[in-house]
Each structure stands twice: as structure tokens, then as C-alpha cells.
């Protein structure tokens, strides 16, 4: 019962979000700000995590494929495909759900409990649209860039491992990452990320927008934002994978 109520409220919020903006220039300005907050500020974490994961997958796979019958370059293939197919889309989305989701929920939640949202409404501003739409646009535009970045950096992390250790020849690795490369893996990943961006931003905004009470509730709403958007990202992954690959 509660679930249907929340789902209903979520869709009502979405209709408010996609109402016609009062002034495009203001929305544009907000979107630029959000690109910085949501996108550029996530560069660091995506780079660090991707480089390590790329390195670890390389070491792991190398260890598992240590069989004279298997060609060495298969390590490169595996690293590439793991990154392109799942890590740089779904795992990066989960990381961003943690970072961006919680910050969106606490930002909007704080605005709710400190009456800033009421203040916007009183001015006659559509607060849902003004606060949330720029975040959606910024994320749907920038998350794919972060995902592409993660692919490059992850593959580079693997390459670095080959150079710094002697587990695998860099030339084998390079050969592997080019071997049977399907460019549509990238578009497949990027498509998924666009959906994830929408899910993370709208779910987190929803949690913040309907926060009630004080600082404690804002904290709770940001936890819920991370949990729910992560679960929905995984669910969406299942559905999208099924749809795109069939």
C-alpha cells in the first residue's frame, strides 16, 4: 500500500518537474552549475576507482588464465569486456548513486526543512522543476562522459599493471584489448548510463523533496536515496540488458 502511495507521489513529482520552465536562461544557468557539482566533482572518484579496478581485474584474470593452452592476450580481452560491459556502466553508476545521490537528497532535503522550497513556491516559482530538472539534464549529459572516462582509465590501469609488473607483456595486453572489439559495447554501456542517471537523480531528488522534520530526517532521506537508487539501478540493469541484448 505504502509502495503504491510513494510511487504515485514520485510520478506526480515528475509531472511537476517536466512542466514548461518559466525562464530558460535561469534553467540554463542552473544546469551549468549542476554540471560542475554533479559531473566535474565526480571526476576524481571515478578515475581513482577505475584505475584500481582495471589493475585488479588484470591481475585476477591473469592468475585465473595461467594455462599454457590459453593465449595470453585473453587477459586484455577480459579486462576490456568487463569494463565496457558492466563495470564502467553499472558499477560506476552505483558509485555515483552513493556520491551524487546522497548529496542531491541532502541538498534538496535541507532546502525543504529550512523552508527554502516554500520560499520558492511563494515567489511563484515551480520549485520541483527549478531544482530538479537542471540536475537531471546535467547528470544525463555528464554520466555517460564519466562512464567513457572510466573505460579509458580502467584499461589504462591494466596497462600500467603490465608495465609495472612482469605478469603480462604489454604487447599481449594491447593486442588483447583490440581483439574482437565491438564498438556497440560502448553505445550499449552509454545507453544504460543515461537511464541510470535519470534513476539516480529523480529518486534522490524525490527523497529530499518530501523530507519532513529536521536534520535527522534529511540524513535518513539521503540514506534512502542511495539504497533505493542502487536497487533500481540494478533492476534497470537487468531489464535493459535483457532488452538490448535480445
Amino acid at each position: 500500500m505504502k509502495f503504491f502511495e510513494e510511487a504515485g507521489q514520485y510520478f506526480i513529482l515528475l509531472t511537476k518537474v517536466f512542466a514548461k520552465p518559466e525562464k530558460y536562461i535561469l534553467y540554463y544557468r542552473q544546469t551549468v552549475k549542476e554540471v560542475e557539482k554533479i559531473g566535474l566533482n565526480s571526476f576524481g572518484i571515478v578515475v581513482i576507482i577505475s584505475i584500481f579496478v582495471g589493475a585488479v581485474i588484470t591481475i585476477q584474470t591473469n592468475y585465473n588464465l595461467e594455462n599454457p593452452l590459453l593465449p595470453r592476450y585473453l587477459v586484455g580481452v577480459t579486462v576490456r569486456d568487463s569494463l565496457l560491459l558492466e563495470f564502467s556502466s553499472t558499477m560506476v553508476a552505483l558509485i555515483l548513486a552513493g556520491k551524487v545521490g546522497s548529496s542531491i537528497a541532502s541538498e534538496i532535503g535541507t532546502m525543504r526543512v529550512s523552508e527554502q522550497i516554500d520560499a520558492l513556491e511563494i515567489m511563484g516559482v515551480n520549485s520541483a522543476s527549478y531544482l530538479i530538472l537542471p540536475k537531471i539534464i546535467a547528470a544525463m549529459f555528464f554520466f555517460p562522459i564519466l562512464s567513457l572516462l572510466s573505460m579509458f582509465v580502467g584499461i589504462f590501469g591494466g596497462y600500467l599493471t603490465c608495465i609495472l609488473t612482469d605478469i603480462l607483456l604489454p604487447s599481449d595486453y594491447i593486442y588483447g584489448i583490440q581483439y574482437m572489439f565491438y564498438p556497440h559495447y560502448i553505445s550499449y554501456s552509454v545507453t544504460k548510463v543515461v537511464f541510470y542517471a535519470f534513476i539516480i537523480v529523480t529518486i534522490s531528488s524525490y527523497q529530499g523533496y518530501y523530507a519532513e522534520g529536521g536534520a535527522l530526517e534529511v540524513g535518513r532521506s539521503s540514506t534512502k536515496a542511495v539504497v533505493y537508487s542502487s536497487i533500481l539501478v540494478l533492476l534497470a540493469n537487468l531489464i535493459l540488458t535483457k532488452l538490448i541484448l535480445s
Partner: protein
Amino acid sequence: MIEVKHLTKKFEDKTVLDDVSITFEQGKTNLIIGQSGSGKTVLLKSIVGLHTVDQGEIWYDDRQYNSLNFKQKKEIRKEIGMLFQGAALFDSSTVEENVMLPLDMFTEMSYKEKLSRVNFCLERVNLTEVNSLFPSEISGGMKKRVAIARAIALNPKYLFCDEPNSGLDPQTGIVIDNLIKNITEEFNITTIINTHDMNSVIEIGDKVVFIYEGKKIWEGSNQEIMKTECKELNEFVFATNLAKKLRENP
């Protein structure tokens, strides 16, 4: 002029406002007083439409607010300025951006015109050289004044203030009270102020309404309030020893 007629507001089963009817006059500071929890904030938020009411009518001059559709309400909202209990400045915007936002949204002014309007409003509340500071960098009283500047940026016809001087020292409180009163008279605004501060009542209470447990049980001017026979109001007005002494030797 704002009129509320037979207003009733419930939260679930709890009646917070019970058949309240009041007329708020133009060009005057109308005060709503009452104990903490008596329903002042709920009344104010019901009048501006942040709460939907269960029964009753709300009239802004000749327009019945609570029967309008979303678009028509929005038109009235542009004529409303509101000062919230906690100032409610936008944390991530500077003082200047805070005051400018309503102008950005609803006027076609150039940046220069907007800036001069912002500076005019800030000067009106005795604030200069704070344009580029963030809300976290100014004091509580300054926040309230910035919030007033933001509320008057679009020349409102109706001004709502929820406890404009709570949390301030008495002197600053009176400065803010007088500021609101001056602006009200200067621009002939219908102003409604929530307060539980007897200083404000005496200083600026052109018209005072006393809310007790969700009911309006008294209205009059700040002259009349000192001589009232109403028992609950007497307890409220003369709650402090200082006030009691004043009554004995006026």
C-alpha cells in the same frame, strides 16, 4: 485587504485551526499573536496556500484565493512577499543572488536595472557591502533583513512575516519591526505578522488578533490589549513579571 472566513484546518484528526474569521487591513501591520503551538504558522501558511484548508474561504481583495486554479494562484503569488521563521535564504546563492532571484524569474529587467533594484532593497533594510557574502557568512539578524529585502524585491501587495524577530536581541528586533511597519505604510501593503513578542505588539500592533488553541478569541488594537477582560489573553500578555509590574504602575 485579506479576509479569511470560517477557516478550518485539520492534520489527520487533529484540528489545528477551528472556524477562524479575520479581516487584515491594507496599509497596516496586522499581528497574529498566540502561544507556541497555537496555530499561527499554520494559519499563515494556509493563507498563502502552502497548506490546503479543509473548510473556509480566503480572499485577496476581490479574488477568492482558494478557489483559483494553479495558474491564477501563481499570479497572486507574485504579489506576495514572505519572510519565513528561519529566513529561508538559499544557501548556495549569495545575498545579491538571493534578492535578485524573484527579479530574474518574473521581470524582463536588464542586469543593471536588477542590480540597482537589489541595492535599493538592501539599502532599505540598512544593509550595504554584503552583496557577495553567502548566508552562512552573515549574522541571524542580517539574514532576516536580507529575507525582508528579498520579500519586497517585487513590490509586493501582501507581506507575510513569520516571527520576524524571534532569536534576535530586543534592539535588533525593534529595528526589524519598525522596518516592516515603515515599508507597510510607505507602499500601502497588507502586512500580516506572526509573533509572540509583546514588544512588537506594543510597538507596531495596529491590529492584533489573538489565537488560542486554534481559535480566534480576541481582536483589537495594541491600545485595547492592555485593558482587555479576556482571561486567556491576560495570561498571555501579562505572563512576565515585568509586564505585571507595568500593569500595576503604568
